[in-house]
C-alpha cells in the first residue's frame, strides 16, 4: 500500500478535500479520513469524477443496532461541530478495482464518538454506478471541514 497524497485542512477550514490526477497503476484505493464539520452534520459526501451512488449501512450506537439504505454520496463520517472540542470522526474507504470500466464496489468502516455522550460505529456497502476509471475523488459537506481534518489516499498495487 503506497501513499499517494495526504491533505490537511488549514486554518479557517475548507469546503472540500480533493484528490486529482489519481495514478492509474494501482488495483485498489484506500482513503483514510479524520474529519470534523463546521455545522451540525456528521456525514459528508465522497464523490468521484463520475458516478451515482447507492448504499446500505449497519450501524451500532452502543445500545442498539439499525440498518438503512440511501442513494446519495454521504457515506463519510465526521465529528459534528456540536461535539466536544478536538473530537474528530474517522472513516476508512476501500475501493476495489478502481480503474475498471464497470460499477465500483466500496466498503466503508467509520466511527464517531463524542465524549461518551454519543457514539456510532457503522459499516457501509456502497456501489458507485459508473463506467469510467476513478481519476479524482472529492470529500465535501454542506459546510466547511474544520482545521486539522485530514485525508490520506493510498493505492494498493500488483507489484
Amino acid at each position, binding site marked *: *500500500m503506497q*501513499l499517494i497524497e495526504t491533505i490537511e485542512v488549514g486554518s479557517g477550514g475548507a469546503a472540500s478535500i480533493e484528490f486529482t490526477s489519481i495514478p492509474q497503476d494501482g*488495483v*485498489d484505493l484506500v482513503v483514510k479520513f479524520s474529519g470534523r464539520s463546521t455545522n451540525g452534520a456528521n456525514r459528508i459526501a465522497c464523490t468521484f469524477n463520475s458516478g451515482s451512488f447507492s448504499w*446500505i*449501512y*449497519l*450501524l451500532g450506537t452502543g445500545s442498539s*443496532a*439499525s*440498518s*438503512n*439504505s440511501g442513494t446519495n454520496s454521504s457515506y463519510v463520517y465526521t465529528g459534528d461541530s456540536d461535539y466536544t472540542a478536538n473530537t474528530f470522526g474517522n472513516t476508512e474507504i*476501500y475501493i*476495489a*478495482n478502481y480503474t*475498471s470500466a*464497470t*460499477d465500483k*464496489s*466500496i*466498503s466503508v*468502516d467509520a466511527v464517531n464518538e463524542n465524549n461518551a455522550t454519543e457514539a456510532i460505529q457503522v*459499516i*457501509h*456497502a456502497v*456501489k458507485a454506478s459508473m463506467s469510467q476509471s476513478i481519476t479524482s475523488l472529492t470529500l465535501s459537506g454542506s459546510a466547511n471541514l474544520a482545521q486539522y481534518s485530514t485525508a490520506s489516499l*493510498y493505492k*494498493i*498495487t*500488483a*507489484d
Partner: protein
Amino acid sequence: MATPTYTLIDSTVLGSSASSVTFSSISQDYRDLVLVVELVSTNTSFAALRFNSDSGSNYSNVWMQGDGSTASSSSQTTTYIRGFSSAARTNPIMATFQIMDYSATDKHKSTLTRSLDPGLSTPVDKTVAYAGRWASTSAITQIDVVAISNSYDVGSTFYLYGIEA
C-alpha cells in the same frame, strides 16, 4: 504505528468461469493475509474459503448484517469460512477477508470479513460483517475460494496480499 503494507502474493482474474480458485504454496513470510474478492456472477454462488483443503465442519462463523431496514445477527458452524452469497446480478460485489496469524502453529485461525451480500434465495442486498475461526493449529499454506454451488463468472478478480508485521 507504521502503515501496514499490502504486498501482492498472487492474483487471479478469471478468463473463464470456475467453481473455485486456489492459492497454494502461500509464503509464510507475513503476519496476516488479506484476500480481496470482487465477484461477477450470473448465477447463484458463494464466496467461501477453505484452508489446506480441509472440508470438514471445522469452521465457525458469526455475523451481523443490515439489509437497509433491519439489523440482525446469526452464527453457523460449517465446512467453510463464509463470505457473501450471490444471486444472479450484473454488478460486481466485493468481499475483503482478513486472515490473522495464518502461519502460527499454536493457535486456531481467526478471520474478519466484510462484504456486500446480495442474498441467496432472495436477492436482497445486505452489508455484512463476519468473524470466523478455523479450528486448526496448522499454518495456512493453501486457500481455496469456493463457489459452493455453481461458479464464478468471467471477470471475477481475486487478489491475495501479505501484511507485514
